[in-house]
């Protein structure tokens, strides 16, 4: 039986070159070790968490003895690790990632399986939850989807709040253990989650906000389609407007959840349709594909809300208040929101451009595209615009049309990726000019067709 012990001290937190699975390498500790000669004077009992990893090994374990730890759900995509990650506690062996490998082995009648094993001296469900939630943030098992990481952060909150273990014991265990706690459980839990997931506290707060009023079904929908943070940031404005209305009206929480979930799924689907993605629906084995459309099993029509005003065009994502700058001296909200430094998430603030007539532009683009598609029987956005199946006599024409369609989708993309340094007026003019040019081209083609 394979049983490799990695050379390792008992207190893994004192080994800056090793990452304590699955918590995060703490650069502050590293710096302190390097900079402070007095660092070694820190008393060990203050630095070692009760739930620290005391041993790490690769072992062949009997598959029947490994329990599926699912207080935190399994990740949608299979682990990229070739071995399951298992934690041994006094209560047994718990698989945190790669349980599908264990199931495969079981189904194949294999008795033992090589696993990465971390050993904890004491058992703690909360600690196992934290480890499982962090396992993809710390890149040990691959990368989790944005909403998956968010959901895990959210799920950790009640688990940690109700845990009998001291929150300080769930800290990272570095020499600065105990720092950042303020004796308010709500604050301290967020602190622990941020530390253990290796995220900024603001990122954790944003996670929780983005998940608010999303049903489990909707969360699954977005995870399966690989929805990115940018989508939720843009959609947040629509969500805020909805919540303003619902809260003022005293709408029941369940209805809010249903409507917010439907709105966001609808927005996502329409965005995907607009982009004309030809990509297939995500499966666990096509992990790097992005979203598609026409694939939802869920109702995606936004449910009509009670106060129907103040919502505007559902497609008109995060455009900023044109008067927000007036008389204000406080920092811009969306700028602040974008100050997140999370590596997975950094992107320019598409919401800072003001008052683009998004619906006009998008509708015009769609109309032209449909007009073209109808006139020339060009395959719609689900298929390649330069499909070789078109007949020779119309091949050139179709290519031409394909190019136009391509431009139209680029326009839509450009709209999607507005840079804050382009003024709204300039951008609107630019887009309208592009669309008008395409419309002229369509007319020319129509005239050409009639002449033929």
């Amino acid at each position, binding site marked *: 039986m394979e049983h490799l012990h990695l050379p390792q001290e008992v207190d893994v937190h004192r080994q800056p070159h090793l990452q304590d699975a699955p918590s995060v390498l703490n650069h502050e500790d590293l710096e302190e070790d390097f900079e402070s000669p007095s660092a070694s004077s820190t008393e060990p009992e203050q630095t070692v968490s009760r739930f620290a990893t005391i041993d790490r090994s690769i072992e062949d374990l009997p598959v029947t003895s490994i329990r599926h730890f699912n207080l935190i759900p399994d990740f949608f995509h299979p682990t990229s690790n070739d071995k399951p990650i298992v934690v041994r506690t006094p209560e047994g062996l718990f698989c945190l990632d790669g349980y599908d490998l264990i199931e495969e082995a079981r189904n194949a009648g294999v008795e033992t399986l090589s696993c990465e094993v971390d050993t904890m001296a004491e058992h703690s469900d909360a600690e196992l939850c934290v480890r499982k939630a962090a396992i993809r943030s710390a890149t040990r098992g691959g990368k989790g989807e944005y909403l998956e990481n968010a959901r895990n952060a959210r799920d950790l909150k009640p688990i940690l709040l109700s845990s009998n273990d001291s929150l300080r014991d769930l800290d990272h265990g570095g020499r600065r253990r105990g720092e950042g706690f*303020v*004796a*308010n*459980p*709500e*604050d301290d839990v*967020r602190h622990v989650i941020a530390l253990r997931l290796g995220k900024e506290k*603001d990122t954790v*707060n*944003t996670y*929780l*906000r983005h998940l608010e009023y999303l049903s489990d079904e909707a969360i699954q929908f977005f995870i399966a389609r690989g929805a990115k943070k940018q989508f939720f940031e843009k959609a*947040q*404005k629509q969500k*805020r407007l909805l919540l*303003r*209305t619902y*809260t*003022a*009206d*005293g709408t029941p*929480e369940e209805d809010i959840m249903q409507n917010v979930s439907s709105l966001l799924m609808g927005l996502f689907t329409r965005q995907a349709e607009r982009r004309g993605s030809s990509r297939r629906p995500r499966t666990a084995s096509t992990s790097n594909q992005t979203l598609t459309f026409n694939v939802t099993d869920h109702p995606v029509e936004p449910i009509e809300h009670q*106060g129907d*005003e*103040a919502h505007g065009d559902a497609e008109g994502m995060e*455009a*900023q*208040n*044109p*008067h*927000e700058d*007036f*008389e*204000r*001296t*406080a*920092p811009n*909200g*969306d700028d*602040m*929101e974008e100050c997140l430094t999370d590596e997975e998430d950094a992107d320019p603030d598409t919401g800072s451009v003001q*008052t683009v007539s998004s619906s006009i532009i998008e509708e015009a683009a769609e109309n032209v595209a449909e007009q073209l598609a109808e006139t020339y029987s060009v395959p719609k956005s689900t298929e390649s615009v330069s499909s070789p199946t078109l007949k020779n006599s119309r091949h050139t024409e179709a290519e031409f049309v394909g190019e136009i369609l391509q431009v139209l989708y680029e326009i839509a993309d450009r709209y999607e990726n507005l840079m804050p340094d382009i003024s709204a007026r300039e951008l609107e003019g630019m887009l309208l000019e592009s669309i008008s040019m395409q419309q002229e081209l369509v007319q020319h083609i129509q005239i050409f067709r009639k002449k033929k």
Partner: protein
Amino acid sequence: MGILVNFCAGVSEDVLPSNRVEAILANVPQNAASEKAISDTRSMLESARVRFFMLDSGGFQLLDRELKGGTIDCDPSRPLVYNPNEINLAPCHVAASGQKLRPDILTSLDLPVLKIEGQKQQQVEFMKKLGFNLVWMTETARLRRQLCPDTELFIPVQCYDLDQFGYLERHLSSLEYDGLSLPTRNLDPAGIALFLLKFYKMGIRKVHLLSVSNFSGIALAAYFARHLFDWFSIDATTWRKVSEYQDYLHPMDLKRISVSSNEVFDERRPLPCICPWCSRTTFTQIKHLPYTDKTEFLRCHNYFVIESLGRDLYARSAHFNSYIQHLRERNQRQARKVGKLIEALTIVHHRRDEPIEILSKVLGGGKL
């Protein structure tokens, strides 16, 4: 008995503090400087389902430019201009905006007097602005009659004391207008009370107080709305500004409570508010909201409590003695300030029919 209307100012569709806002105050430079701005304003009014809409001329924006620098012009031959470097605003722009946006109330164009101390300096400042103000109120009144006769006209009173007001009063008698609006930045509660008594004695029945959303201002407005005027309105952007500074207004006395991210709250301390927004959260949860969401939350809550305070104080102001008692009990934090307010209101309540000269004396010339 009149009505008290609290105008929500400094608002746009994106930052509406509720799905229904009873009264909105917009201004000509920001809300009517282009077709787009006009269309956005209409859309905002529709979204908010407003009952009252007031269009301010943009005196504040002129003052702002005066203080911050930039070109100020009032050329009627040029279009309305409002950008960070320049403002071109004339009575014709104000009346034309009124014609397009059809507000319930339009304010005539004014050039505000600065907030300065010292009688001499105030006199100079008043003299400097008087000519503009007399000409502009005359012009706006004339154009209002031509372009938007269905809209009521309120004339801002830009002066520091009743002596200065005499010059305006003589001119006002020749104008057609519906009410007066009074900037409060230079006045104590006693000073405001004195002006309001003067308006009352002139036969004015509709008054607007500019930039009022503190406890004393609302309490004073509630009393005057209830006992002296047919229409009494106030406005402020406080609900939005304090939200941007991450401050939560206490519903009792509008005390500011910071909910910025470095505050630590005792979780046993419940939210003191019954608004629909507060019913679903805690101080710590508010604190942890991302900035934009937090600001949105605070805008809704802060507007709600300012509105509620106005409604509550108006309802309680019917019985003077219990009203005074309530003010004392409700705001013990600002006992001295509230004491001065109560002193002024007591004089108004018991001696309002005495000559204004005597009232001016007992009200300390506007400073108790």
